[in-house]
Each structure stands twice: as C-alpha cells, then as structure tokens.
C-alpha cells in the first residue's frame, strides 16, 4: 500500500522536473501528461481504498465531484505558478489557486473562510503583488521585448529542489495514509478520523465547549435557557457565527496580538518605503 504512494511521488517528481524551466529543451508537454496521469492514477487508487460507501454521516456525493474538480484546478495552477516564465502570469495563476482552494473550503462547509480567502488573498495581497511586479519590471530588450529575463527562464537547481520536495511529500503521504495494521495509534487509522461528523455530533461537541455555551447564553439574553432551547439555538448557528464565537471567546489575546503585528508591519512598510537608496550601482548592468 505505501509503495503506491512512493511510486506516485517519484513519478510526480519526474514530471515536475520535466516541466521546470531550464536551459535548452524542456519537455513540458510530456511532463504535464505524466503529471496528470500520475495524479489521476493516485486518485483512482485512493477512491477505491479510502472512500467510504455513501452514508448520511459524511460529506455527500456531489461534494466528491467538486472536491476532485477544485483539487485538480489547485494543483494544476500551483504547477503553473512555479513553472511559468513571466511573473505576471504566475501571479494570475496564483489567483486561480486561491479560487480553487476557496471552492475546497466551501466543500468543507467553511463559508466564511472561503469568502475571506477570496477577498483578502485574491483581492488585497495579489493586487499588491501585481503592483510590485509592474513597479519592478526591467525595461525590456528592444530586440526581443517578449522574452523574459534569464533569471525567469532558468531555474536554480531544479533537480535538488524537486527531490527535497517530493521526499517530503512521500513522507507526509505515508503518514497520512498509514493503515491501522502498521501502528496501534488510533490517530493514524483512517477509519477513526475518516468521516465528517454528523450535525448531531457537532451540536453535542460544540455544546460541551464551555466558551461557546457561555456565549450562547449571552446571545440569548436569558441565562436560564433550558438545554433544549440551547440545542435549538446552536442548530441555527451558521459557520460565520461559530467562527466568530470561537475567535472572540476563545482567543482574545491572539486577536490583540494580531492587531499589534499588523500595526508593526504597517510602520515597517512605511519605513522601508521611505528609505533613500543611493543609486551607486551601474544602471545598465543587467
């Protein structure tokens, strides 16, 4: 069983190495084909071994299709980010990663996180990246204005980087997909942590959370709410309300620290942006 994961990791490493930009001929189409075949084969294998039969407890059947679509999009976009010649296109493919992982978060029924991810990553951070790419672009060569500079066309030690990355991936996968017969730890057996819990289980667990319970009483306004009323009210809480309760009831110190970090980075960015640089270097050396 783990040999399948190792073989898939090796094939993926070979495929990615074929696609990395480097001197001379790089067989990108062949690498893309090999990567797609590897990913599809791995998913087929996992679908036969790690999908539970349809039940009413887990994530339902249509979500499975969406999961495969969004995962495929995210992985393809990630490969394009690290293999594309031009930084602007890499940034645009990164927007695709953000959208695809927002879709995956929707499959996981984390609506607030999905929307926040699109707004903050796709809207704020990526716009900053694109601005900096435009600001820091070199004046192009007049003979061939479409060619990217050499440091974009040739990657640095692609073989070593790919080997390191995929050894790490093989290790992660073999830990994730470890079966119960190899270890006694219930944490690693897929059947224990396999299923998404039902709504009743979520209500039960959330209600045992003391902070959420207190907050519920505060929301309701009546401290003497009976258990059944609290059950009903918890059932009506949506994802945003639950995340908000957990954030403000469970992590107030972290919230303050996040504010301090944002302020510090604001001050730091202003200081960095106002630093005067003497252009002592020869300008035409590129």
């Amino acid at each position, binding site marked *: 069983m783990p040999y399948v994961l190792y073989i898939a990791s090796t094939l993926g490493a070979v495929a990615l190495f074929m696609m990395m930009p480097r001197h001379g001929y790089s067989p990108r189409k062949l690498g893309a084909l090999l990567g797609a075949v590897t990913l599809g084969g791995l998913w087929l294998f996992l679908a036969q071994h790690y999908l539970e039969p349809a039940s009413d407890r887990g994530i339902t059947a249509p979500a499975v299709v969406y999961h495969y679509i969004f995962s495929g999009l995210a*992985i393809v976009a990630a490969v394009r980010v690290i293999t594309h010649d031009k930084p602007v296109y890499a*940034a645009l493919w990164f927007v695709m990663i953000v959208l695809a992982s927002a879709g995956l978060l929707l499959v996981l029924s984390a609506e607030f*996180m999905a929307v*926040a991810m699109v707004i903050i990553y796709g809207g704020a951070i990526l716009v900053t990246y694109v601005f900096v790419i435009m600001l820091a672009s070199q004046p192009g060569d007049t003979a061939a204005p479409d060619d990217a500079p050499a440091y974009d066309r040739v990657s640095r030690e692609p073989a070593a980087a790919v080997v390191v990355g995929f050894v790490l991936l093989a290790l992660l996968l073999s830990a994730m997909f470890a079966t119960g017969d190899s270890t006694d730890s219930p944490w690693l057996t897929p059947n224990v942590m396999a299923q998404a819990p039902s709504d009743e289980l979520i209500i039960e667990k959330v209600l045992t959370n003391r902070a959420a319970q207190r907050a519920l009483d505060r929301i309701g306004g009546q401290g003497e709410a009976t258990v059944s009323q609290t059950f009903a009210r918890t059932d009506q809480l949506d994802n945003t309300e639950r995340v908000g309760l957990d954030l403000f009831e469970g992590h107030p110190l972290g919230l303050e620290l996040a504010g301090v970090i*944002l302020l510090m980075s604001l001050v730091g960015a202003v200081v960095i942006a106002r630093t005067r640089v003497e252009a002592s270097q020869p300008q035409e050396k590129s």
Partner: protein
Amino acid sequence: MPQALGSLTLSHFLLTGAVLFVLGLIGFLSRRNLIIMFLCTEMMFQGVVLTLVAFSRFQSNYTGQTFVIFVLTIAAAEAAMALGLVVLLFRRKRTLDASVWSALSE
C-alpha cells in the same frame, strides 16, 4: 465506479494541502525571481490553510478555522514587508535576480 461516489475522507483534503505546500516549497527553492519566491510562500500558506480547515471540519473543532484568520493576518503582514523589501532591493541593483544578493558584503 459506484464506490467512488462515497463520502470523502479527511485524507483527500490533506493530500491536496500537502501537494500545495510541497509545490510552494519547490518553487521557493528553485525559482530565482524574488517576487515569485514570495508568491511561493503564499502558496505554502494556502496548503496549510486547507489542512487546518479540513482538520477543523472533521474534528468539529472551530479553532482550526479561527487559526486561519491568524494565518491570513501573518500573510498580509509578510506580503507588505516582503514586497517593500523587494522594491528596496530592486532600486539598488535594478534586477530581481535573487542570486545577485548571494554575497553577504558588497
């Protein structure tokens, strides 16, 4: 394949998160453009976010999703600082090549 339309397990989401993280790592190690290197760190953040939310859903513990808010905070702060530094470095040598800066002294 009728069995393929069962219910998803946690491992599927962990697989996607791990692949995103590893691809970001490879990109950070092998690309030479400073901006793309920082873009790859954001990609690693994406993988971590996916893993956190998947654990949060399957363990029905909302602290995982709360932690994503802090990850977003750090990502925003890191983007602001790192891009400011990149612009500063670009103004000194007029290039985005990371290997220009391989010597510690000038």
